[in-house]
């Protein structure tokens, strides 16, 4: 599949999800058997750990179609970047979607500030650049979108495997926004 075919596939899958007409394909034992020897997913989704944002449901994909990296606030750290490098370098995935979402609790907590303990503080620190870029009093939705864009930039600046693939035109990174109240994904 070409990059634009993959993006179409994700968009039409999301249309089916929003219309509650999932095809539910590629989820049976025959598909598992097909995939026992290996996988060649066409896309990688970096999304939040939020229980309401489920990439495989939101894009109506079956087994073996998308790699999914999930961490609260869909941030890039050395491990999430390494996971994506693995997908790009070893499995030939060619679209990376950085998927933020409406009312993200991690972004909201980062904007609120305060001390949430070592691990959560570490996590929320990744979101600080988006908060700074949006300025004081910015809407959460704007910070979420900015965070998705900056994270997409981080993937480029912190990984030569990813940036080489993007510069060659074999991989595209797309920031996106998931609407919690409709299930719709807006590509930014």
């Amino acid at each position, binding site marked *: 599949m070409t990059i634009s075919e993959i993006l179409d596939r994700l968009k039409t899958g999301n249309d089916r999800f929003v219309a*509650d007409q999932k095809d539910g394909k590629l989820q049976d034992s025959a598909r598992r058997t097909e995939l026992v020897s290996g996988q060649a997913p066409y896309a990688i989704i970096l999304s939040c750990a939020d229980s309401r944002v489920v990439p495989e449901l939101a894009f109506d994909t079956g087994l073996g179609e998308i790699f999914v990296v*999930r961490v609260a606030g869909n941030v890039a750290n050395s491990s999430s970047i390494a996971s994506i*490098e693995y997908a790009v*370098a070893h499995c030939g995935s060619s679209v990376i979607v950085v998927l933020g979402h409406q009312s993200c609790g991690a972004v909201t907590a980062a904007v609120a500030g305060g001390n949430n303990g070592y691990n959560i503080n570490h996590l929320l620190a*990744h979101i600080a650049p988006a908060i700074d870029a949006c300025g004081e009093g910015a809407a959460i939705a704007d910070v979420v979108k900015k965070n998705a864009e900056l994270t997409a930039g981080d993937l480029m600046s912190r*990984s030569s*495997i990813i940036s080489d693939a993007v510069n060659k035109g074999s991989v595209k990174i797309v920031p996106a926004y998931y609407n919690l109240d409709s299930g719709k994904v807006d590509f930014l």
Partner: protein
Amino acid sequence: MENLNVATTQTAETQAALTADMAIHLLKDGNARFVSQQPIERDLSAQVEQTATGQYPFAAVLSCIDSRIPTEVIFDQGIGDIFNARIAGNFVNEDILGSLEFACKLAGSKVIVVMGHTSCGAVKGACDHAKLGNLTQMLDKIMPAVDSVQTAEGEARNSSNPRFVNEVAARNVELTIEKIKSESPVLNELFEAGTINIVGAMYDVKSGKVSFI
């Protein structure tokens, strides 16, 4: 237990009524439905609407990014049921621990399931001591599991040996659980108080079955 309507969207009330054991039971039942190809009919659009203003997940699952293991599909769950952290090789770092703390402390999940799987590419990479970009550092996180699995004399200690690979994946789950307890005082406290449970599991990519360990 029989009365639990598993297709119902989780609310503050249903979540509060669940124990960690019940949460594990829900996951086991869901996986049995997946294996027997009898998923529950769900009105996902209704679930999207019902969860738009809040989430009350009953479980948090830490699993691999592998495309063959969509968590909600293999546990036959819907929107708002599972808080989900995924990283190649399902280990923990500060941000994943922060995500799991978020899941349990703030979002109220009752159980953390650390789920490895058979034929894991990240585990294979670690077994082969692969070196490439940021991957090198990531695979280092799995090395303690590689080092601690025994092999018979002459038995290969690399990805050519599926038994070794799958043992390392299971060992990695155990070590990750230990790490969660030792590196997250927040989660350890919830665990010690019996508010949450932390359990391990392995997913078989061939059978689709999740074995809790």
